[in-house]
């Protein structure tokens, strides 16, 4: 019944999709073959909670995402119109109750995302068969749960996820093994643990591998939020205006489009920043297709954000004021705006943490170093993370960092933790 309904609507949509794909290709986009599926809002929330995939391994954090999406939807805070995933063929999920004008806009938007995934160099080495991989990973983890117990596996998953950001975000190709890593300092702590940690059971190693693989798959996405959304918004606007829109749809479209790319006061809307920057770059006569092929967010901002642009877009830097307990505007200097943005975007907004020594003090202890670039780590979470790391490494673990301008060594060995100034 259900699938019949989808099939029927898909058939109705097919001519529209084909027409828009034709327009997109005429305009110079080169997307993957893209398949569309209509979903109701619950299915949309489910897919979004699973990070865009129909099957993921079982874990409560997807449930949490679902909870947040569902409440956000119920109270009218947000609504997901579409989900596109980096895949070949590319899959796009559309909300079935989108009105026809929104649906057209969204289809244009999707083709531009699909083009971005295919053409941007940071995605070149991501797996494009991730739907199958994720399903296979889910099956593996389910077998482990059956064998070792749900609680045990869930607990180790929690632990693995606590380390999932300790990968090399700047590696376009994920290192395959330790030989890929030159010198002793590696940032791929996940890989390091998989290869070097003693006394790990095989299933635990596999869990770490799965979490790492999926983290690398999502890494380019996290680092191309502004440019990818900007690109998609730029093109849905171009395509709608040049080819797709009929006269009677203009008002609905304009109203919808301006909502999507509206500047939320006090917050950065990646759609808005991205589309405006692309328009600005176009005016300067730069080849947009080159930009989309070679940049991630950091490069996009670093290369193209100008003083005039910041002024026109009324950009500012805000900061948390501990006295008033709220965020305040502190500066409008464009260089500071740029620096702040770059700070957030570099390395996917994650700290640079290296493996310094795996035989620290000659006792097989693990020493990590945080390259401090002005921002402190959250101390309480550091201790909890070190504790998780200890449970994998099984010997004392240490992190050298800087807290409030004071170099510190945080250590964890079992239940005892310490914080020593150095």
């Amino acid at each position, binding site marked *: 019944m259900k699938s019949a309904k989808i099939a029927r609507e898909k058939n109705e949509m097919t001519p529209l999709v084909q027409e828009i794909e034709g327009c997109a290709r005429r305009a110079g986009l080169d997307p993957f073959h893209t398949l569309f599926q209509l979903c109701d809002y619950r299915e949309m929330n*489910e897919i979004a909670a699973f990070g865009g995939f129909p099957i993921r391994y079982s874990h409560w954090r997807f449930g949490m995402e679902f909870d947040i999406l569902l409440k956000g939807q119920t109270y009218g805070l947000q609504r997901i119109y579409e989900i596109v995933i980096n895949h070949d063929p590319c899959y796009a999920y559309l909300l079935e109750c989108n009105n026809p004008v929104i649906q057209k806009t969204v289809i244009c938007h999707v083709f531009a995302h699909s083009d971005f995934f295919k053409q941007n160099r940071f995605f070149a080495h991501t797996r494009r068969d991730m739907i199958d991989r994720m399903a296979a990973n889910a099956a593996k983890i389910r077998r482990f749960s059956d064998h070792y117990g749900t609680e045990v596996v869930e607990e180790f998953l929690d632990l693995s996820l606590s380390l999932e950001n300790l990968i090399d975000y700047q590696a376009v190709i994920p290192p395959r093994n330790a030989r890929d890593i030159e010198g002793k300092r590696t940032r791929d702590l996940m890989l390091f643990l998989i290869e070097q940690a003693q006394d790990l059971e095989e299933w635990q190693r596999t869990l770490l591998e799965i979490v790492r693989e999926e983290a690398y798959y999502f890494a380019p996405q996290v680092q191309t939020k502004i440019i990818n959304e900007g690109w998609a918004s730029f093109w849905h606007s171009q395509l709608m205006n040049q080819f797709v829109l009929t006269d009677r749809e203009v008002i609905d479209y304009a109203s919808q489009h301006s909502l999507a790319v509206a500047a939320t006061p006090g917050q950065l809307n990646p759609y808005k920043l991205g589309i405006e920057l692309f328009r600005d770059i176009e005016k300067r006569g730069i080849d947009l297709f080159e930009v989309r092929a070679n940049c991630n967010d950091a490069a996009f901002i670093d290369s193209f954000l100008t003083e005039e642009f910041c002024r026109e877009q009324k950009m500012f830097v805000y900061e948390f004021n501990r006295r008033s307990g709220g965020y305040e505007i502190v500066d409008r200097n464009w260089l500071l705006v740029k620096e702040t943005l770059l700070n957030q975007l570099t390395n996917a907004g994650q700290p640079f943490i290296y493996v310094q020594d795996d035989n620290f003090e000659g006792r097989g202890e693990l020493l990590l170093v945080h390259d401090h670039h002005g921002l402190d780590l959250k101390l309480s979470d550091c201790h909890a993370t070190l504790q998780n790391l200890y449970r994998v490494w099984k010997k004392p673990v240490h992190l050298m960092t800087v807290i409030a301008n004071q170099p510190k060594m945080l250590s964890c060995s079992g239940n005892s933790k310490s914080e020593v100034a150095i």
Partner: protein
Amino acid sequence: MALRIEKEWRRFVQIIKGRVKRNLKSFITKGELLGKRGGEVISIPLSRLEIPRFHFDLNAQRGVGQGQGKLGAPLSRQEGEESGHGHGEAGNMSSPHALDVDVTLEEMIKMLGEELELPNIEPRGQRHVLTEINRFSSVKRTGPQGLLHFKRTYKKALQRELMSGTYRADHPSIVPIKEDFHYRSWKVVEKPTSKAAIIYMMDVSGSMGDEQKEIVRITSFWIDSWLRYQYGDLECRYIIHDASAKEVEQDTFYHTKESGGTLISSAYKMGCEITQRDYSGDDWNVYFFHFSDGDNWSGEDTKQCIELLRNRLLPSANLFCYGQVESRYGSGQFLKDLNEYLTHSANLIMVHIENKDAIYAAIKSFLGKGK
């Protein structure tokens, strides 16, 4: 159709409700649901569990925003929240300070209903009373900005500009003037509703302290809200009693401190009188809630109470709920007596409320029958 995600969702809910012990740092604030209320809007925090990571301290971090504002101008909470529209994409990141959602009291009540799995009430009585409600189904020339009919307004402006010849195809700028503005508006329609009355009774004898009254107050507030949501039209009456009963205003009900002995039958008698006088028709759904520490003066009086319940109160009521709160002097005999003599009454519900944490369960027992 059951969704795959529901399994993960249930697991998450189990963890945050503490049914599963996990070594996770959580930002859940319990009891929040029953506590916070400011005017019409209640702020409920979305529960999140955080997996610890090496990451930056977000509060210490600067951010970039867009918009007007002088240096030093605060960004309001509202602005910090997630933007209302967007195309969701795989790998979405949520903003760090989007933790609270503001809901209206009505939505809050719905959530309470869902949370406690309360059934909707099936009203008694055949006759229904008609009430007027508003349906937004028409368009008017005046109205508040929030109800502006954007498309209609735009069309009118375009029409006017075309007709008056001020429209320029090469520079199409449409500026609506006063006459162009149209607003959504409502029509009044009649809808059948049922009427309900709650009669609250509370023991205010010396042994009932502030803490006990606080429990009664919180419990009644949520019962009140739920029934109001179910019926739309609700009358409340308040009776306090020590050795004698009197009818009072809501405020007095919660704040009086009497002293002396306790004759529960005095309140029950007055409850009977009020019902007979004001709510005797078929179309009334009558609820009694009685709170006491269970210390009645004599067994003789308790017997009288049981008679009143059996012959007069229970037959005329949808529900009779008795909540026994624990006082400094322990809990009295009354609950036990009721239990002994009136076990088989379907519409009598008795609950022992030891402390504030038990309120939740008490509400569920009181309203869980859907009567």
